[in-house]
């Protein structure tokens, strides 16, 4: 049975919408129409659960599914439920146009009834996982991640670069903390690694999927090893380099110019006379705070060894303000400015320091210039990212999915990045990052992966094997295996981007087939015309993440807008293809607006960008055939900007 439940929300929605009229118009469409008053309360949900049977398909016209969806799902036995937000998206924003608001409700509820014809239950799958984690290390984060996982009883393999030695940690990572802290930390970590399998090798291949990956690496002796693991943590660390500008400081030309680390590492000779040292920083390369802290600690250390230390600097960002004071108190002399020229004379190195903030240059003559190294990506990042299918950012560090809230997740599911492999960071953040990665890896292997959702279905006859879907899927959820496109459910995030990528429309998304869109748009247009006559209307194709959240929030924030637009939810705006847009125009919409997540913020990573491409392409097509391209446009919407809908379809002010 097709059932409709309309909620009055404490008898308020029916003050704006004419429920009698709605019921009358939809009598032929639904087998049963029930009006309730508090669907979201415990008694309302229980009544709903008792009234609707497992075989029913249900439309709920009430508040937004963003807040009602899951409570309903817990109480209703049927999986075939469609929501129409008559509160946030009609009653709360169209109170000044009661008649049109009622018509809009009728249109959208009719649409939902058609949607029920195409709804399918979600596909459910369970994947077993291999109870083992591979940490690809080389630095502190790798040790820490292995340590944390080992403590939980998880089998860990720590794979480090060929030829790596114990003292590498102290030498190569001296920049992340003072040497005492680093020393103590390493002692603690090494003690906890007794159960960790430690190997050295170079990653060459990754096959499999999250929960059951197989990694292959090349050993020292040329043989290869393959191992299964449930998740992978990339902690390849960072390296420090002498900046290009070292040449200007006469590095390589004069023996007096050395790298700072060589100076710090050189053994102290007894009775060595006091030297004057200028620590030279590359003014063009902005220092991360870990580098700034390292600069201050190093300068202080050199000063405490009895040298006169100058630091030529611009902005120094540091993790701990006290490091400045400690350096100054130890006698370090800070000169703001950049080194313009260095000349070697018998007296030493004469350096001209120009300060862009003052009109005078200074000259200082020193025995030694210690060039401050910059931190750059590990040389193994290129190889590792290629073998594992990860992305590198423009600086060669390993990219994360979303810089604000996903600090360790990479573009590949089940592969995490920790520590300096992602960006230069000090000790405290390195440890957090490593433990964060350990948590995410642990969550994958601790129990079988249970997921459910609507998945893409590929029609092999229509499929050309062009692989556009493979390339476009942001989650590696489609693969070419034995001349077939195969879906990997454990990687799928149910976005539907693959649908729009396919040029032959060989992929249809469960519950969202082309047929379903056509039937729904036709119903909307027909119903609209019947009730509103020749009044123009707009389709708003809104993603069910940020865009829909924003449209709901327009209701909460009282940002009213005129009737005349119908919001259609898509799992991701990236799923919209020119077919849906053109059909929208063909059934009579004056405009089609695509609303997606903000740039750099798409919940599915690439959907916003793809939807902009689709719209741009469609506009070009329209222009070519003599239609007004302005009939189609794309925009972003976010919950923090509840006025977005007003900006797009107008406001009453």
């Amino acid at each position, binding site marked *: 049975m097709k059932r409709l439940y309309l909620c009055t929300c404490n008898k308020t929605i029916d003050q704006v919408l004419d429920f009698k009229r709605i019921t009358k118009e939809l009598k032929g469409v639904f087998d049963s129409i029930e009006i309730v008053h508090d669907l979201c309360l415990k008694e309302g949900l229980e009544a709903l659960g008792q009234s609707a049977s497992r075989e029913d398909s249900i439309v709920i016209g009430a508040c937004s599914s*963003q807040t009602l969806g899951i409570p309903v799902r817990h109480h209703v036995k049927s999986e075939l439920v469609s929501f129409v937000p008559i509160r946030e998206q009609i009653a709360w924003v169209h109170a000044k146009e009661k008649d049109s608001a009622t018509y809009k409700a009728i249109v959208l509820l009719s649409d939902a009834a058609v949607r029920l014809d195409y709804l399918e239950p979600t596909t459910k799958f369970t994947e077993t996982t291999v109870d083992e984690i591979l940490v690809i290390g080389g630095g502190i984060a790798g040790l820490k991640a292995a340590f944390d996982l080992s403590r939980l009883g998880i089998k860990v393999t720590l794979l480090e670069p060929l030829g790596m030695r114990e003292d590498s940690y102290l030498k190569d990572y001296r920049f992340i903390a003072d040497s005492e802290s680093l020393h103590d930390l390493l002692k603690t970590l090494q003690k906890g690694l007794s159960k960790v399998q430690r190997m050295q090798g170079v990653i060459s291949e990754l096959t499999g999927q999250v929960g059951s990956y197989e990694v292959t690496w090349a050993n020292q002796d040329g043989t290869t090893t393959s191992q299964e693991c449930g998740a992978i943590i990339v902690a390849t660390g960072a390296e420090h380099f002498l900046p290009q500008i070292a040449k200007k400081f006469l590095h390589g030309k004069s023996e007096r110019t050395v790298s700072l680390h060589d100076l710090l590492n050189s053994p102290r000779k007894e009775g060595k006379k006091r030297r004057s040292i200028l620590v030279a920083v590359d003014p063009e390369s902005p220092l991360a705070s870990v580098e700034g802290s390292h600069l201050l600690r190093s300068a202080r250390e050199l000063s405490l060894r009895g040298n006169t230390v100058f630091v030529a600097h611009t902005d120094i960002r540091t993790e701990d303000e006290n490091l400045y004071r400690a350096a100054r108190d130890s006698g370090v002399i800070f000169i703001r400015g950049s080194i313009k020229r260095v000349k070697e004379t018998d007296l030493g190195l004469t350096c001209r320091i120009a300060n862009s903030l003052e009109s005078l240059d200074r000259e200082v003559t020193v025995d030694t210039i210690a060039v401050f190294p910059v931190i750059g990506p590990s040389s193994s990042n290129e190889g590792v990212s290629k073998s594992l299918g990860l992305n590198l950012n423009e600086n060669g560090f390993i990219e994360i999915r979303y810089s604000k809230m996903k600090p360790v997740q990479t573009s590949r599911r089940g592969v995490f990045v920790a520590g300096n492999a992602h960006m*230069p960071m000090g000790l405290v953040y390195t440890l957090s990052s490593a433990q*964060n990665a350990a948590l995410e890896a642990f969550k994958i292997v601790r129990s079988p992966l249970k997921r459910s959702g609507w998945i893409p279905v590929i029609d092999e006859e229509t499929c050309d094997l062009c692989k556009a879907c493979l390339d476009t899927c942001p989650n590696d959820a489609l693969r070419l295996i034995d001349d077939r496109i195969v879906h990997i459910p454990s990687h799928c995030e149910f976005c539907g981007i693959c649908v729009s990528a396919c040029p032959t429309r060989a992929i249809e998304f469960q519950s969202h087939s082309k047929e379903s869109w056509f039937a729904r748009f036709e119903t909307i247009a027909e119903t609209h015309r019947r009730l509103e006559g020749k009044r123009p209307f707009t389709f708003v194709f809104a993603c069910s993440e940020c865009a829909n959240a924003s449209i709901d929030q327009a209701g909460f924030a009282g940002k009213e807008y005129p009737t005349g637009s119908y919001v259609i939810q898509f799992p991701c705006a990236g799923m919209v293809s020119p077919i849906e847009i053109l059909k929208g125009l063909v059934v009579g919409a004056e405009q089609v607006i695509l609303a997606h997540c903000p740039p750099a913020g798409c919940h599915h990573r690439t959907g916003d960008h793809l939807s902009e491409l689709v719209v741009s392409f469609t506009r070009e097509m329209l222009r070519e055939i003599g239609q007004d391209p302005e009939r189609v446009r794309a925009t972003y919407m976010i919950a923090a900007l509840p006025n977005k809908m007003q900006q797009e379809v107008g406001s009453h002010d």
Partner: protein
Amino acid sequence: MAKTVVVVGAGVAGIQVSQQLADLGFVVHLVDRESTVGGLSAHLGKVFPTDDCALCLDACEELFSGHHRRCQYRSLLGSQKKLNLHTQTQVKSIKREGNGFSVSVKTSPRYILLDRCVVCLECIHACEVEVEDEFNLGRGTRKAIYRPIPQGVPLAPLIDMDSCTRCGKCVEVCGVGAINLDQRAKTRTIRADAIVLATGVEERLPHILPGYAYGECEDVLTQRELARLLDPTGSTVGKALTASGQPAKSVTMILCAGSRDLNAIEYCSQVCCTYSLKHALMLREQGIDVSLCYMDLRVPSHSRHYLELARESGVKFVRGKPDHVVVRDGRPVTVVENTESLERLEMGSDIVVLASPLIPLASQDGSFTDLLDADGFCHRRSKKPGVYACGTSTGPTDIPTSVAEANSVALEIYTDLMGVGK
């Protein structure tokens, strides 16, 4: 029996650690003294590094398989089985009890019953009492029964009893009996196996720096107040207006207004440079001239684009720490030495914005005193077993770091309480 964790503070870090702990099988009691969650992020509108909503949270596995991010308002924080949210709740005392703690909390009355309210908003329409909207700088009004922010969770309104006249109109229109004007404060004791302090920070109101005319001139604001002004849900619909309602044409920003200052707060508040630049860009988008006085510009690597864009968009950078701000003819005038040109400048503008220090909230509460350092911040892993901290309660920091720290603390707690052999 499942182990229980009490998380104090429902800001970004508090929510993150709570969701992770709930996913890991703990029973979590998340308490916050405010009426809605989000902490400082709820004030901010858009945040760096991604220039999108401050309200974005990681979603919990229990409800959202696939783990998409969700806005606070659709995160169903109040409906998760293992995660118990207690707003308007303060920790009164923490006593050690066996291997765990006995945490006494007091919940102030909301006067709205959270399990009855359907958020129909009729009570708000019916209320006739209007007062200054303190959340939005006192510009604009709200009712005595109100929802502080549109996206605020819990979604139900609350009553400001100090302004309420007890006329009872709201009770009349509430068809579900969700309003109880006689609701009393409730005290309860929660037995916890671990405690997480995620109490966060707040902006220090700059009265300590009288030279900057804050409080004297209504057009001298803090950066957080500017964020309210620029938020489309604020009282000016996102337009930068002066207190008298005129569109601002020029804004002067003063960074380090009280941070890195031996006379005020000694430490660096870490994130103000970046969010000041973020606001500067938003002002430039409205065609407003912006001058920014700074000592240093400290921008993390994931947010360097703010600095580059600010330079490109014509923000005027003045290196110098302003000596004072005077008020002439009702306008604030910033007096600063440009150390670049060695000129003494007097810059008049419509609005002056101070980047005030971020100070820890934990130090304002007597219950935590012995867990804090000299500046009032907590250690991630405190010397007292069973007590942890994450987010800005351990030191001012940005959202990505808070999230990473919260995640790492979740695993730490799991390891300590449920590790192998336990």
